């Protein structure tokens, strides 16, 4: 639970989202502990969709990623606390393919603060461009990632110390 995010929290979460791309795209299975929680869940919606539950499965998924898997470059990140105190991030990935074409889509994340710093506890990845066959949850599932008035664009306090 988090009532509000400081400037430092938001910057640390931006850093985390960027680090995810470097760690995963480098097939750094050990490094996944630095970006996701031990009980983290990663879901994809491409094709029939898939769910990767827990760090052991996430590390295996990272190790087994095919060599031509596109890189993940994160842009457009917004981070806010929802009405239930859950910290959510919504961002986009731009993924260059080996042939120089590009794929892009949305990341919807839930973040938690651990003793080691912020980590992703849930991520669902939804391809948008080009238009591919996907199996996403119903549209209302994503409503929780729509910020309300006052969630964004308001200068956040820096925390002392």
């Amino acid at each position, binding site marked *: 639970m988090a009532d509000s995010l400081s*400037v430092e929290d938001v910057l640390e979460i931006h850093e985390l989202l960027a680090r995810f791309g470097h760690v995963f795209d480098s097939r750094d299975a050990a490094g996944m502990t630095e970006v996701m929680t031990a009980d983290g869940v990663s879901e994809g919606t491409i094709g029939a969709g898939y769910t990767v539950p827990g760090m052991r499965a996430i590390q295996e998924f990272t190790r087994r990623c095919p060599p031509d898997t596109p890189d993940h470059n994160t842009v457009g990140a917004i981070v806010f606390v929802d009405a239930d105190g859950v910290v959510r991030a919504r961002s*986009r990935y731009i993924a260059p393919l080996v042939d120089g074409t590009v794929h892009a889509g949305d990341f919807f994340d839930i973040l938690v603060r651990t003793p080691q710093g912020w980590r992703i506890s849930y991520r669902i990845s939804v391809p948008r461009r080009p238009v591919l066959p996907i199996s996403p949850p119903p549209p209302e599932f994503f409503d929780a990632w729509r910020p309300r008035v006052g969630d964004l664009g308001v200068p956040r306090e820096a925390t002392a110390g």
Partner: protein
Amino acid sequence: MAAVLSPPDALAIHEILALFAHVFDNNEVEDLGLVFTADVQVDVGAGPSQIYQGLTEFADFVRNVKTAAAPDHHTVNTSLTPQDDGSVHARSRYIGINPEGRLTSGEWLDVLVRTPQGWRISYRRSLPRTPRPAGIGVPTPRTADLWQATPVGES
């Protein structure tokens, strides 16, 4: 003395610029007010631009023109210049990705103002840059001069 933008304000402005694409690309017309002022003016195009005056008019454009064939927008390379009147000039690039996975790109020249609800875009000029015919360069209107870090004519 030049105006100075605090880090919390800069972060808040970056959030609004990021939020734009999520709202606009998903046709979430009811959330446009989280990004723009009610009296926003949006100028689209480098030549004789298409001008949308006010959030209602711009929302109609989003509702009617945005289709599945439109590109998604990704905002990058934002540079912020605070103005003496308290507003902030933001100059960004957009990368557009269309349904075939091909790119477009261009520039957004924004004015952001502080409102009781937070920072909002009160003016946006959208200037396409690519694709364009080879050999002609990028057509840039004079209004873009206002977004130069160094005013034109000074060094």
